[in-house]
């Protein structure tokens, strides 16, 4: 009996029990398993606490550190709040999949070696796909298949990198490296696919909004943030990540500005926010890594809160398009207020969790004298307020009066939203206890008057820009093409074309074979076969006089002798 059970095991057992149980027992499992996991997470001390022999390796399923506990903690909190939000509305298999998915995330957090990391990584891929499918529509099923294919490809690439690293270094340990050779590049690419990095960012905004109103809350939290954790563990200070991150930040803003579907706006802003974290990992200083970890923690809370408020709207109205929504603040005051708090937090407004965490990343860029990066991040901060901070609540809850008068959130959804809204503000107002949990010592004062003033100017004038430019941002019933066009349309057409060509070629081949066979048959009949009447026998099946035969044999013998002598 090992001294420490991997905390992920609790969630896996819960996932297995949710199916066979019913009623209050099931509800209790959904709500208590994450809390038990949270308790177990805080029992894990620093260092490797569990080793298991596996093939020729000693794998380490549980290794503790401040960073690992921090990520595992937020994953467990997320599993609890997500469970609270959905346990009365979601189908049982979605809840079970969500627990298994969270188990994968907690497992990755404590993975002490690359093999364990990979196993839990794939667990997440499998069960997040189930959550996408739990959307239940044909569109959700199609999106789920595309999502699964993308993550299986990512998993294979990661596996290639891990295998190469293990073969060439002889070690399965998780150690900081830089992308310098084929193995490390493969690992980096495999992780970045899960982080929704370019050129495959499209999988995220394709799949998440197709899930159920409750499913998208779970999806928003785990996959991309475990990728951020893996980057912090494996690739801190990898310079290419700075520019990958900047690209993601800008991509998220532009596509969110073009988007009409409220949940898809939020999906694009996940890419945008993860971009900040990826950029911070690329900067790689202690302050930057603290910033990445802190921002991931805060981000999971406010992004889940935003998806919850959007989820309530979808649950109550069945609509998620900005063109069909608007004016909901009249009958959904609580959802509106919670949505606005989430929106302010994602925009890193002072006194919210976004401000106390994201500003660490900007300051880390400044202290490394990364001038261009700093200005781009500042511009992006303004852009976040534009595309998520105002656009989301404005078009969903205010804007025009859509005539919809839905009821406000059911009590459990409301409780989950209030919990996370309170956390957003607590982390923003009083961040010191949270700073204590970060992986490196924090010597950071978020609320310097000059800095607060700078960000207030930046954000409020972004707000001004939004309302003055509203005529340019009228929603249209459109989608925006992305790189997924390549595999959804171009490759589909190519595959269809190849299929059609192969079919045609096959037909042609069959025809040719038929013709040749016919020719042989005719030839045989003509020269060898006996005709039906016996009159028109083939040349070799007629009766010939013996003299002719002897003559032919003589000719053949002479030919043989001549060939032999030559």
């Amino acid at each position, binding site marked *: 009996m090992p001294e420490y059970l991997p905390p992920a095991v609790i969630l896996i057992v819960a996932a297995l029990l949710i199916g066979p149980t019913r009623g209050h027992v099931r509800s209790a499992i959904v709500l208590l398993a994450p809390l038990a996991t949270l308790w177990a997470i805080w029992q894990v001390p620093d260092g490797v606490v569990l080793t298991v022999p596996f093939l020729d390796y000693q794998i380490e399923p549980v290794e503790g550190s401040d960073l690992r506990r921090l990520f595992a903690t937020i994953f467990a909190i997320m599993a609890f709040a997500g469970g609270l939000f959905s346990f009365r509305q979601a189908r049982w298999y979605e809840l079970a999949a969500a627990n298994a998915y969270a188990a994968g995330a907690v497992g990755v957090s404590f993975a002490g070696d690359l093999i364990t990391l990979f196993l839990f990584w794939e667990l997440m891929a499998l069960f997040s796909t189930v959550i996408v499918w739990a959307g239940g529509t*044909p*569109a959700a*099923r*199609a999106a789920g298949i595309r999502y699964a294919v993308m993550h299986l490809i990512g998993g294979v690439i990661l596996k290639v990198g891990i295998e190469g690293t293990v073969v060439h270094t002889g070690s399965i340990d998780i150690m900081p490296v830089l992308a310098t050779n084929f193995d490390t590049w493969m690992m980096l690419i495999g992780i970045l696919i899960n982080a929704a990095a370019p050129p495959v960012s499209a999988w995220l905004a394709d799949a998440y909004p197709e899930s159920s109103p409750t499913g998208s809350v779970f999806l928003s939290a785990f996959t991309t943030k475990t990728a951020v954790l893996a980057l912090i563990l494996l690739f801190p200070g990898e310079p290419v990540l700075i520019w990958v991150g900047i690209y993601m930040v800008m991509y998220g*803003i*532009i596509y969110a*500005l*073009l988007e*009409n579907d409220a949940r898809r706006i939020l999906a694009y802003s996940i890419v945008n926010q993860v971009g900040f974290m990826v950029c911070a990992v690329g900067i790689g200083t202690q302050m930057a890594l603290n910033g990445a970890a802190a921002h991931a923690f805060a981000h999971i809370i406010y992004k889940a809160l935003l998806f919850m408020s959007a989820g309530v709207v979808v649950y109550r109205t069945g609509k998620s398009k900005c063109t069909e929504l608007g*004016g909901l*603040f*009249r009958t959904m005051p609580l959802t509106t207020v919670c949505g606005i708090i989430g929106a302010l937090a994602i925009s890193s407004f002072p006194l919210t969790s976004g401000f106390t965490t994201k500003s660490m990343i900007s300051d880390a860029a*400044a202290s490394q004298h990364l*001038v261009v990066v*700093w*200005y781009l991040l*500042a*511009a992006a901060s*303004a*852009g976040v307020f*534009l*595309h998520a901070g105002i656009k989301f609540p404005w078009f969903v809850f*205010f804007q025009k*009066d859509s005539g919809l*008068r839905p009821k406000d959130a059911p009590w459990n959804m409301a409780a989950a939203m209030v919990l996370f809204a309170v956390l957003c503000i607590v982390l923003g107002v009083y961040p010191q206890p949270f700073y204590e949990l970060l992986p490196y010592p924090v010597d950071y004062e978020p609320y*310097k*008057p*000059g*800095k607060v*003033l*700078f*960000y*207030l*100017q*930046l*954000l*409020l*004038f*972004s*707000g*001004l*820009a*939004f309302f003055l*430019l509203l005529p*340019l*941002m009228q929603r*249209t*019933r*459109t*989608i*925006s*093409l*992305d790189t997924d066009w390549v595999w*959804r*349309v171009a490759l*589909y057409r190519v595959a269809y074309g190849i299929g059609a060509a192969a079919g045609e070629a096959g037909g042609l081949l069959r025809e040719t074979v038929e013709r040749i066979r016919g020719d042989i048959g005719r030839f045989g009949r003509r020269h060898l076969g006996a005709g039906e009447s016996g009159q028109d026998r083939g040349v070799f099946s007629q009766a010939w006089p013996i003299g002719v035969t002897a003559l032919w044999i003589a000719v053949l013998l002479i030919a043989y002798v001549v060939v032999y002598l030559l």
Partner: protein
Amino acid sequence: MSGQPERDDRNDRKDRDHWLARPENIRLLWRGFWVVLALTVAAQIFIPVKGHFVVDGWLAFGAVFGFFSCLAMVLVAKALGYSLKRDEDYYLKGGYLEDMEDRDA
């Protein structure tokens, strides 16, 4: 059905009465917003912003930078939109979704 118009009337009256939806209050909110904007710039006279890279400490730099960044992003998005935007059932026309529905039926 006969009770329907009455209820709609009552709803409409209630909407008109919601303080956030009234035009005079929206005008008031705008005025308040302008005042707050002016205050955040004016406050910089008393609270120095310690810039990291020269210009970001200038008066109203945050305001100008925030506004024009957003303007630039909206215009870029608008320009990209002309080539990237498609009808919302663009991917549904590919045929494979209908195939799946047919199979279910």
